[in-house]
């Protein structure tokens, strides 16, 4: 059962968000994770005032970037908490690719598990793309060619082969590991024979409670 949409090529306008270190508490604040409105209220501190009204400088309200499938951000995007709601919110907002100089590792991993491509480029390349995005140019991300292009500019990128394959085919990691259960069981038997202390000593038997 795979709910991941394969990603081969995306060509769209790109939403520029040139802020560094947007953490997952900003992408999906804890109060919104709890009350379930984390998609509608995604990026809340950037989009809403303390009284709940829309901010006049909400970067996502710019009609020029409505429908953009690519988000271009400052460095260290998605740092902080491991909450997967941040990846879900980015996906639900319609973004299929996020481009940054660096990402929080756990956020990047969560993106891949949900068919969103977190794409790392050098700082100067990100700057050039932010400019292209501001000028409303179409940005194209091509996983076959492994390039991002806009107008006459082409930027090659690297991606671990396993991630590329998973994105191209829409593979679900759970399905992948379930298909290897036999191997996992054999490894586990051997490991526990080799390192029996990995199974916790039963503290309740000692009356430790």
């Amino acid at each position: 059962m795979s709910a991941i949409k394969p990603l081969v090529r995306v060509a769209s306008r790109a939403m520029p968000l040139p802020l560094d270190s947007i953490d997952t508490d900003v992408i999906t604040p804890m109060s919104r994770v709890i009350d379930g409105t984390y998609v509608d209220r995604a990026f809340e501190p950037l989009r809403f005032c303390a009284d709940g009204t829309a901010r006049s400088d909400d970067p996502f309200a710019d009609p020029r970037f409505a429908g953009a499938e690519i988000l271009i951000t400052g460095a260290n995007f998605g740092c902080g908490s491991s909450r997967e709601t941040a990846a879900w919110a980015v996906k639900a907002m319609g973004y299929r690719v996020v481009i940054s100089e660096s990402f929080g590792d756990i956020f990047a991993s969560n993106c891949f598990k949900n068919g969103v491509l977190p794409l790392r480029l050098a700082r100067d390349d990100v700057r050039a793309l932010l400019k292209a995005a501001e000028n409303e140019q179409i940005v194209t991300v091509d996983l076959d060619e492994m390039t991002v292009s806009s107008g006459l500019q082409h930027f090659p990128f690297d991606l671990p082969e396993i991630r590329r394959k998973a994105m191209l085919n829409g593979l679900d990691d759970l399905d992948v590991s379930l298909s290897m259960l036999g191997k996992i069981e054999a490894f586990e038997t051997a490991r526990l024979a080799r390192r029996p202390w990995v199974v916790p000593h039963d503290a309740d038997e000692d009356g430790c409670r």
Partner: protein
Amino acid sequence: MTTMFEKVWADHVVTPLSEDADLVWIDRHYSHDLSGPFSMKTLSKRSLACRRPDLTFALPDHGVSTEPGRSEASTAAGSKMLPALRRYTSSLRIQLFDLDDARQGIVHVVGPELGLTLPGMLVVCGDSHTCTQGGVGALGWGIGNTEVTQLLATQALNVLRPKPMLVRIEGQLSPYVTAKDVILHLIARDGADAGSGHAIEFGGSTVRMMSVEARLTLCNLSVDFGASIGFVAPDETTYAYLDGRPYAPRGSRWDDAVDYWRSIPSDDDVGVEACGIAPQVSCGTSPAHTIGVDDLVPDPADAPDESTARAWSDALQYVGLRSREPIAGVPVQHVFIGSCTNSRLEDLKRAAAVVRGRRVASGVRAWVVPGSGSVKREAEQLGLHEIFVAAGFAWREPGCSMCMSMNGDVVAPGERCISTSNRNFVGRQGPGARTHLASPETAAATAITGHITDPRRFGEESV
């Protein structure tokens, strides 16, 4: 040279998946009220069983109230999540350390203190600060909901192999300077993403001299340095800490384990000079926005580039500080001593040494939230709670508390808190709340004066 990371990782590879990714078997998984129920529900929706319920341990910490006399009904989040955690752990036969269990507390405090986390293990949890567990020589990292489901179903994860990085810290720390100050200094110096994609081994003489509890604090902030894994190679200090813990191996199993643990440190001890570090305090909205307590608030005009300048200026506006003003002397309304960073016995002892015989400044709400039931009991046996209560601190029940504002423990908009936690993000302690990260000593000194204070001042006075 083979590094400890490489040895431990290789010990867990079920099968390589590509040049840079492996399917790895996981020794231990911690579940909590925020991360557990969603994935456990997905598991049952997909009609999957929990493969190794004996290797997962669950405890409520994120959404629970820390108020004395609490129940799950004490917070909105708790009343929603805790019953679900109980239901699923019971049907999946996963051990739960519930609110009425003496072992309940913050996952990253409880795992090592019960001897559930051991050197050479791979440990995961749906929480980014799982890197804390590296303090006892395990490789721990935070995972998302999808991976929690995968872990429960298979006890294995497919992961990109992080690259090893060594951070060597050398020399004697000055009095009143702690592991917390070292790691905040490192983040401020090299940036909040400097460890991105890496598993960090902390080595060097300073780390060797640290207690296990201090090493847990050091590793706790690895993720805020960009590295999802941070660890310290096990040594005699580690074995002495773990020996006899409730879930640690016994008898010949213990001997076999220690034999193996002695083989895992990196073959060559592969920096940071510790002696020059002052007590640190954050002054913005990223742990990288950190300065010495005797420094001035930075001026965005001095930033190395335009985007950093903008980040600094946004941060200063949020926290309500002016550039070039001394950080010491800024008044606070709240003091929080707790969280998976700094809520262990040693932290409370060090804070109590500053507080003893003094009073919390008027107008300051000061809290101590022990990291677990065990920490709380041991602290009470030592009479630490009496020192705190006599000074005007509230003495609370174990939980994540004011670290991340989902359990009723919040800082009001525009108010300022000095906090021993790990993140000073916008809104982290409540909408509009202003956070200054610091060590337990610095937080305690600040509670007494009511404004950000260098704890070394108190040392001089008492000498």
